[in-house]
């Protein structure tokens, strides 16, 4: 914390303050632990900690029949959505930068509309449309999850691409044009590679969003982790332990991705290849990407900051 502005907010503690902090810290820790213990005790009271409810997770059956297929379902839907969303985002992001006004408007309108409709609404919508029209028979759930995640996250990636290109120094485009490249060649071979490098950490963190959002497939009975947790719950009568285990799985995977994104960010910055650190979406999760001012972005990208 020593280099962040936060540490300017207070003095380095002296001996008396350190003693006070220790006392308050210890009290708070005890209080937090007491609260945790009380919650656990409540669960004990409800027989949530009986061996019968937890031993299934140490047996092979739950893992081979439920958790691993659920994890596979989650990862499969996420992987397909990520690839498709990247393609969608690239096409529409470049489309929004096109020098042809109609292309720019069309891509802009599509991206803006897709960004403002909730993922769940799209998912339920596509699920019913597929079901009603007999498309993807037997795989409607998977298809609907992938379609919704692709369209939504694709539009977010499109905004990332656009923000990345727009925040490059003006001279980059001018240089491309002045050596005789066409506007589209300039975009393709000069602007895009730089923008993508700069946006890589943000795109990585978008992957966490996709992973988390696959859990929405629960609603349309796509067999992903959360759905499987529910099944375990009704099979073994241990809904809460099942939720806890699945939550831990999600947290572990996503924390890994976040850490990876942060490490990548640091690496890019050190190697000086990231041309425009001026852009970092603070709330990429939540769909609306805003080009922040430089100071904002620097700290949002640093630390655990704005990446998720």
């Amino acid at each position, binding site marked *: 914390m020593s280099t*962040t*502005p*936060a540490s*300017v*907010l*207070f003095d380095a*503690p002296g001996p008396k303050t350190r003693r006070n*902090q220790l006392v308050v*810290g210890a009290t*708070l*820790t005890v209080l937090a632990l007491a609260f945790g213990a009380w919650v656990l005790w*409540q*669960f004990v009271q*409800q027989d949530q900690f009986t061996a019968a409810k937890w031993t299934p997770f140490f047996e092979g059956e739950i893992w081979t029949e439920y958790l691993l297929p659920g994890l596979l379902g989650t990862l499969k839907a996420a992987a397909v959505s990520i690839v498709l969303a990247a393609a969608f985002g690239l096409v529409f992001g470049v489309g929004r930068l096109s020098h042809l006004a109609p292309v720019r408007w069309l891509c802009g309108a599509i991206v803006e509309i897709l960004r*403002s*409709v*909730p993922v*769940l*609404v799209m998912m*339920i*919508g596509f699920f*019913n*449309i597929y079901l*009603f029209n007999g498309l993807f028979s037997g795989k409607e759930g998977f298809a609907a999850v992938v379609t919704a995640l692709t369209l939504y996250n694709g539009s977010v990636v499109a905004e990332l691409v656009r923000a990345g290109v727009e925040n490059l120094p003006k001279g980059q485009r001018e240089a491309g044009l002045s050596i005789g490249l066409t506007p589209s060649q300039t975009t393709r071979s000069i602007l895009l590679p730089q923008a993508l490098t700069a946006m890589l950490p943000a795109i990585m963190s978008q992957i966490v969003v996709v992973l*988390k*959002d*696959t*859990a*929405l497939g629960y*609603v349309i009975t796509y067999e992903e982790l*959360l759905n499987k947790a*529910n099944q375990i719950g009704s099979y073994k009568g241990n*809904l*809460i332990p099942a*939720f806890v285990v*699945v*939550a831990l799985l*999600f*947290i572990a995977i*996503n*924390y890994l991705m*976040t850490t990876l994104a942060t490490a990548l960010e640091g690496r890019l910055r050190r190697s000086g290849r990231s041309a425009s650190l001026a852009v970092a979406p*603070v*709330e990429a*999760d*939540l*769909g*609306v*990407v*805003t080009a*922040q*001012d430089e*100071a*904002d972005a620097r*700290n*949002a990208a640093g630390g*655990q*900051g*704005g990446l*998720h």
Partner: protein
Amino acid sequence: MGELFSEFPVWSAFFMTIKVCLLAGVIAFALGTLVAIFRLSPMPVLRSMGALYVNVIRNTPLTLLVAFSQMGLASTLGWHLNRADLYSDNFRWGAVALGVYTAAFVCEAIRSGVNSVHVGQAEAARSLGLGFRQTLGEIILPQAFRSAIVPLGSTLIAMIKNSTVVSIIGVAEIAYLQADAMEQRPDLMYWILAVVALGFVILTLPLGLATTHFGKRLAVKR
């Protein structure tokens, strides 16, 4: 299309979404500011508690939080927020889960705002002899909210869209209406989708415009 409005409680679904968002928004804003203060505080214990909160919540799917709050806390533990009416209890648990989830993002938005305030401001406050509370409360936070307004607006818009998730615990809001209506009247399918999508545009557009407007007006010229 008229049948849609006469057969299904469209207006009450919209009203329910707004109710969920208002409650969740209040929780998210209050809790998020508190956690942000935790994360900035001089006390290592508070800082790590804040970091733990943000990291755990941010990496958990909202769907799981909502399901857990109702099926775990409300059903299993019998923690009813409103003993009289279980139905409205689901609405409250859904809003609480949404608020708790959004608080993590509100915290990060505020923190990024605080970090964008120039260090000199904090240094000046410190050199005038102000303590942590005064420095943060009177000098830093008022300026931080200014640059946090755009990310905060985005967070609120996202929260409105995320409010659809509470439909999984049977709260009769827009997404619930959509699922229900699409199943019962597949012939009206595209109308339903259009009405629902339009509904969200109507709910989020003013907020988006306001965010851009205030973002521009309050932006610090550098």
